[in-house]
Every structure is written in structure tokens, then in C-alpha cells.
């Protein structure tokens, strides 16, 4: 983690100048607590115009709170938010930001088209409503009432509503959450078309494949902090460990966790998965202390393993 903190420090120094030069997003030292929960614990993030950034992290990592502060829906206890050098309120008023939040919603009695029309009417320079419906791939179902739509159709209406202000920055909180495979595919096709014009996107997702396929950059959060920030390759290489799987009758998770080189223990009955920074040392110790271990395999980390390792408590 020394490496990460020095990188973050470097970002801080750049931030002062880049914020002036018009970074799309500049978050500096954001703190937010809800009662005992420290939802944001010093979040720093700088996004250049045109970047597509995935925000990853387990539930409760502070992704949604960070997005809400970014959008001006929640006021940070401490820290500063700038979008294109402006306050969130000013950037919103100028129609620079479109957002799709989990908690936002529309009235069931309205049709898809009416929803997008009403949103368009709030902005200074909106897209044509038909254009937004086409881009979001919901044009042919726009006459349906929102309440009668499938989960995937609703998400597309929300996407159209976020697009219709023709924003330079799109903020999406789990945009594909209710979509089937084809729906997700279409959604990201639409997004690619959108970002081809140099637009900036920040999206939170639980689908690591989406981050891998679509994002230029991955930001990993845990317990209110940014713990990794870089390309997918950079982030996975940060976890240069391996995974040992084995069946160990009578194994004790605490004992296993104390083995040299072991980072994280997952246990289901006698099946044990060890995430290891030094798998050689761990394997030697494992065989000494648990001679009953069998069906042992050692594999390299996937992005998912990296995600688990980086966001777990022990790292």
C-alpha cells in the first residue's frame, strides 16, 4: 500500500494545476459520515475529460456516496468537488452532467417518451427527445407506461433521461443492473458510440467484466477510501499473488490465516481457498501443518481474485 499512497499523493499535487485546467472531475479530500459509518474517508479522484472510469468496490465501500457528493446531492462534511472547474450545482445548471442513479426513479403512470420530454425541458441545450430515445435503444417502446416496463426497459429510459441533456460527463450507478445479457451488450454499444465523441464517463458496477471491457481506468474503493487506481492491467498486477485451493478436513480458518504468505482465507466446509502474496511459502507451510490436505491446486490471480484480495480486510 506504500505504492498506492505515494501515487495518491502525486495525484494531489497534479490536482491543483489540473483542476484549473478543467479536469472533468476533481474530488479532493472528501469525507462523509452517516452516524457511525464513515462512508467517504478522504476520497481523492481526478478524471480527465474523455476518460471512461469504472468505480469498483464491495457493497458499502462508499461508491454511491461518492457519486452523490460528486453530483451535489449530498454535501461532503469536508473536501471539495469540482466538475469542469465548477461547483456541482453550476455544472448541473449548465447541463454538463447527466446521471443515472439507483435511487432516482420515475412515475409509473408516465410513458417513456413523456419522461424524457420532461427531463429535456429542464435543460438549456437538450438533445431531441427522439434522438435520446434512439441512442438509449428504447424508441420503439417509448409509448409504454414506465410502470409496465421490464427492468431492462426501465434502465434504458433512465439512460435516455440521463443522455437527453447532452452532457459532457455521464455518471452511472450500476447502469446494467436489471438487464439481461443482450440488454447489457446493447447498452455498452450505445455507451461506446457516446464516448467516441470524447465524453467523460464515471460508472459504478459489480460486473468486473464490464470494467475490463469498457473502462480506460479502474478505481477501487474500500471502506470509504480509494485503494487502487489505474488501468485494469495495473490494478491486477498490484496483486501479484496466487490462489491455493485444497480440501483440508478439520482445517481452522484462523490457523490457516496465520500461515506465512497467506493473505485471505475463504472456507466452505473442508474446501479452502487461500489468497497468497507468497504462494510458495504458504504451500510449504500448509503441507507441514496440514498434512491431511489434498486435491491441491495453485492458480494465478484473475481480476476477480484481485478484486477480492484488494477489497478484503487484510490487505
Amino acid at each position: 500500500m506504500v505504492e498506492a499512497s505515494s501515487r495518491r499523493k502525486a495525484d494531489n499535487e497534479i490536482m491543483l494545476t489540473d483542476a484549473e485546467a478543467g479536469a472533468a472531475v476533481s474530488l479532493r479530500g472528501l469525507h462523509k459520515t452517516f452516524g457511525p459509518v464513515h462512508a467517504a474517508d478522504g476520497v481523492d479522484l481526478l478524471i480527465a475529460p474523455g476518460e471512461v472510469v469504472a468505480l469498483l468496490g464491495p457493497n458499502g465501500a462508499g461508491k454511491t456516496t461518492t457519486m452523490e457528493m460528486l453530483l451535489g446531492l449530498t454535501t461532503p462534511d469536508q473536501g471539495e468537488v469540482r466538475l469542469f472547474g465548477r461547483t456541482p450545482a453550476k455544472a448541473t445548471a449548465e447541463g454538463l452532467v447527466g446521471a443515472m442513479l439507483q435511487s432516482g426513479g420515475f412515475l409509473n403512470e408516465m410513458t417513456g417518451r413523456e419522461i424524457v420530454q420532461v427531463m429535456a425541458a429542464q435543460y438549456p441545450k437538450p438533445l431531441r427527445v427522439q434522438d435520446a430515445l434512439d441512442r438509449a435503444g428504447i424508441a420503439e417502446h417509448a409509448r409504454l407506461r414506465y410502470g409496465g416496463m421490464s427492468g431492462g426497459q426501465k434502465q434504458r429510459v433512465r439512460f435516455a433521461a440521463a443522455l437527453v441533456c447532452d452532457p459532457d460527463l455521464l455518471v452511472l450507478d450500476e447502469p446494467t443492473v436489471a438487464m439481461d445479457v443482450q440488454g447489457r451488450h446493447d447498452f455498452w454499444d450505445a455507451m461506446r458510440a457516446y464516448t467516441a465523441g470524447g465524453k467523460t464517463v464515471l460508472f459504478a458496477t459489480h460486473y468486473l467484466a464490464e470494467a475490463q471491457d469498457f473502462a480506460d481506468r479502474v478505481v477501487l474503493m474500500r471502506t470509504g477510501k480509494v485503494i487502487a487506481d489505474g488501468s485494469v492491467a495495473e490494478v491486477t498486477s498490484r496483486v501479484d499473488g496466487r490462489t491455493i485451493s485444497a480440501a483440508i478436513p478439520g482445517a481452522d480458518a484462523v490457523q490457516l490465516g496465520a500461515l506465512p504468505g497467506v493473505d485471505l482465507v475463504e472456507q466452505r466446509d473442508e474446501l479452502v481457498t487461500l489468497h497468497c502474496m507468497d504462494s510458495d511459502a504458504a504451500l510449504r507451510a500448509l503441507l507441514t501443518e496440514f498434512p491431511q490436505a489434498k486435491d491441491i491446486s495453485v492458480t494465478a490471480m484473475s481480476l476477480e481474485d484481485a478484486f477480492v484480495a484488494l477489497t478484503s480486510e487484510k490487505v
Partner: protein
Amino acid sequence: MGALIVTELKLLSRSIEFLVIAILFPAVFFLIMSEVFGNLSAGSLDMVTYMMISMVAFGAISGAISVGQRVAPERQAGWNRQLRLTPLPGWSYVASKVVVSLVIVLPAVVLILAAGFLIKGVELSLTQWGLVLLAAWLGSLPFGVLGLLIGLAVKPDAVGAVYVAAFLMLALFGGLWVPVEILPGFMGAFAHALPSFWLAEQARNLATGGGLDLLGVLVSAAWFFIAGALVVMLYKRDAARV
């Protein structure tokens, strides 16, 4: 803001139940009541006229409040939060709701007055008809905002109950069912602080050739602006994490 008003009116026009209860019901209620109690005397006004004005107040209040409290299901759907992501300012949201409540109240009031004139033969001068209409219509302003306040301040599952309680108290203590004169003294004084009392009182004064009461205008305006300020505040707070 215009688009919000148009949308809301479009949605209301699709809800026959809402339109019947908000617009038609008070006029029907007036016809039934005046049939039952119409031959009693009520001071300087004949009973039918007195009841017509009470029902106008009743219709204006219930129409305006019921528009305002519709904000509760909208909140539950997340519509407020969605609007907060747009440049729409908080006061503009409130203003659009108030305009919608005025649009709903107007036909409700006109229907009662028409029933009074055409069916019950109430006689007022043209100016008096106009003034009564205007007093009831504009007097409904605080209630649209009060409905909003209830919809925003109260938990969604309690909104219905609080709405009914507020409406009944405003009607009872405002003297819409029982003349304020026969309420106990302290309640009579309390009535003078309520916009429901002043809505009916101003209309009655104007119907008997009197003028506007300045105190009444101030009381109604105070309710409107204080409730309005609270609504704008709650609307902004509501957008924060629930």
C-alpha cells in the same frame, strides 16, 4: 417548470377517480346539504348562500391539499431525486405544484357556484359572484403548499392519515361545519389564525357587500410563505440520502 405543470395535469386528467373526488364531489355535497338544511337562517346570509360559501371553502381546501399530498408517492418513486439532478430550482418545483392546485381548484369552485346560481337560485350581483370566486380560488393557495408540506414531511405510509387529520382540523376549527360564533371562545380566537377560516370569512364578507379583511389576507399569506419556505427546505433535504 411549464413542462412539469403540463405533465402533472396530463397525469391527473388520466385519473378519473381523482377528478371526480376533487372537482365534482364538493358540488354534489353542497346540493345534498342545502336540500337538508337549506330552510334554516344564518344571520345576514340566507342558509343556502352560507352553505354554498362553506362548501366552496371545503372544495377549495380539499382540492388544493389533495394535489399537494401527491408528492408522497412521487417521493417514494424517487422522482424528486431525479428532478434534483436537473437544473430545476427547488422553488420552481413548489411553484409548479401550486399552479396545478390552482388549476384543479378553479373548476371545483365554479361548479359549486354554478349549482348555487342555477339550481338553488342564490342571488348575488355579478361583482359579488366574481369576488367570491376570486377569494376562494386565491384563498386556496396556502392549502396546496400545506399538502406539499405533509407529503414531504411525513413518512409515506402515514401521509394519508395525516392528510385527513389536517383537513378535518382545518375544516372544523375554521368554522366550515359549525359557525365559529357557536364554538367556545378560545376556539373562536384560534379560528382567526387559520387560513381555512379566512377563506370562508372573506368570501362571506364579499358576498354581503363587505370588503377584504386585511388581517385575513396577512394570515393566509403567512401560512403560504412559511409553509412554502419549509417545503423548499424539505425538498432540498429530501434529495440527500434517505
